[in-house]
């Protein structure tokens, strides 16, 4: 089958142009993807990992023909995404997270029937294929209910069934676990892993490190529209070698204090994550420097919770890569 790669992206770029306002039109430009290059082998499960706004969805839409690249090119199963659109579309499935993308006032069965027709599943295969997929995603028995009554997780599973109707060679999954409860998310990961093990190429985007770590053969970390690191989970983990991580739970840390932490000797990166009322400060330092006492001194007078010093995890490697890009 021609190309050895399922997906080839070559210096993909995409700029969104928008005009706002009628009287005094203002042009805005967003460079969402700035030169992305990678390849995905047939049957590989490839992860695109990055924070919100990194350009993951845009990259997926460039590859699945929904958007035309501003420059650069890409091929899916050897077919150019811009010129051989229909050839590409025949071979791909697209599933995105969230609860949109379905006909709410129709039943799951009607949704699947419609898309089976649209995606050219042969009439005599439709019944069997739909039953198979309803079984696979655990919706058998509920298929005659209207989708508007479905839970988030059920919708997500219906989405997946829909994306698989025409047995695509390449499946694009854009943050499929968003807003899904932990149990459903685990089921979903198992379904994805099963698909990959039976030969489907999967390109998965996520902003959960753990999800990428568990599922993916290789991961590209994307931030700010370009790839910051690419490798197996083990290779990425090595990025954080020679570091130590101090985690501090705090309440009401001013910006200035975080800046001060960054300037401490031996500190490589700092990150702040809001978790409800409290903030989680993560301070990466060289492994041989003990910065914990310096950190606590800088935070004097601020209400603190748990303080912890530990070995870096893959999550820390991800934080290190992303914050180095910022």
């Amino acid at each position, binding site marked *: 089958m021609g190309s050895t790669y399922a997906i080839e992206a070559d210096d993909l770029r995409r700029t*969104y142009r928008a005009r706002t306002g009628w009287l005094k039109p203002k042009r805005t430009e967003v460079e969402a993807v700035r030169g992305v290059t990678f390849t995905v082998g047939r049957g590989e499960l490839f992860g695109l990992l990055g924070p919100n706004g990194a350009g993951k969805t845009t990259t997926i839409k460039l590859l699945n023909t929904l958007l035309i690249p501003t420059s650069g090119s890409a091929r899916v199963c050897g077919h150019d995404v811009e010129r051989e659109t229909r050839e590409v579309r025949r071979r791909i499935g697209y599933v995105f997270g969230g609860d949109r993308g379905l*006909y709410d006032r129709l039943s799951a069965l009607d949704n699947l029937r419609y898309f089976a027709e649209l*995606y*050219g599943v042969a009439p005599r295969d439709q019944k069997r294929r739909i039953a198979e997929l309803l079984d696979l995603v655990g919706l058998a028995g509920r298929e005659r209910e209207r989708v508007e009554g479905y839970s988030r997780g059920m919708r997500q599973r219906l989405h997946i069934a829909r994306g698989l109707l025409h047995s695509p060679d390449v499946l694009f999954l854009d943050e499929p676990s968003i807003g899904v409860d932990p149990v459903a998310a685990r089921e979903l990961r198992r379904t994805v892993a099963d698909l990959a093990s039976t030969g489907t190429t999967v390109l998965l985007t996520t902003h959960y490190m753990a999800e990428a770590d568990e599922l993916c053969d290789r991961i590209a970390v994307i931030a700010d529209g370009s790839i910051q690191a690419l490798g197996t989970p083990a290779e990425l983990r090595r990025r954080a070698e020679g570091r130590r991580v101090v985690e501090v739970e705090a309440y009401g840390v001013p910006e200035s204090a975080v800046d001060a932490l960054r300037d401490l000797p031996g500190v490589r990166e700092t990150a702040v994550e809001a978790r409800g009322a409290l903030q989680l400060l993560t301070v990466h330092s060289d492994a041989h420097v003990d910065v914990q006492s310096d950190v606590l001194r800088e935070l004097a007078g601020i209400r603190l919770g748990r303080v912890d010093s530990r070995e870096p995890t893959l999550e820390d490697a991800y934080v290190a890569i992303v914050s180095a890009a910022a």
Partner: protein
Amino acid sequence: MNTLRMLAIGTLLHAKQISRSPFEIAIALVVPVVQATLAVYLFRSSGEQHRLLEAAVGAGVMGVWSSVLFGSGGAIQSQRWQGTLEMIMLAPRRPVLVILPITIATGLTGTYALLATLAWGRLLYGIRLDFAHPVAFVVAAVVCVVALGLFGLLLAATFVLMRNANALANTLEYPVWLVSGMLVPITVLPSWTAPIAAVLPTTWGARALREATSGGPVWPSVGICLGISLLCLALGALSLTHVERRARAAATLALA
């Protein structure tokens, strides 16, 4: 064969999805009554029975037109909202085959407005439903619905590209009602509207229905109506292919 099957199933399912909207149901309950009433009060003074029926038919066709106009624009807008527009455009099909079932479905749900207007006219005001050519009337009604659906296709091409499609739909509702003589005969309109009326499929559809109602040569109008519709189909198909590409360049298939 498979394409026809896809179009038929697509049309039925879209009609199902559209007709289950609470907004549509509310409109469907109220509008035909209002239209039947309007027709009766506008024409009762003339005292002629068949003028009354003609007016009710005209009002019904206006209902089909509104359904197509807002349906084609609204359906595409609401599919953009639901995130289904991307999913259907992603099918390995010509764009025209993807959009056509939606616009025909709006014509189909609009037929209800035509029938309901006649039914209310009969029920509330005792309009006698004696058509001059009953069979021709049924044929003309089917052609009219298909014609409007195909005209909707042409509109849909514009709607895929424009995010604020509703604005356009709003400005088109009344002019087309008037110009194509759905309610008042074209002959009472200023002469500059005549060329516009002549190219609108709605004009010929409404005329065919009027002729079938009160007598006249129905078939020429039906023929012209079909001809213009096929032209709409060809133009719509061409422009949708062009528009799909532009939408992918301008990122207008999704909301954000």
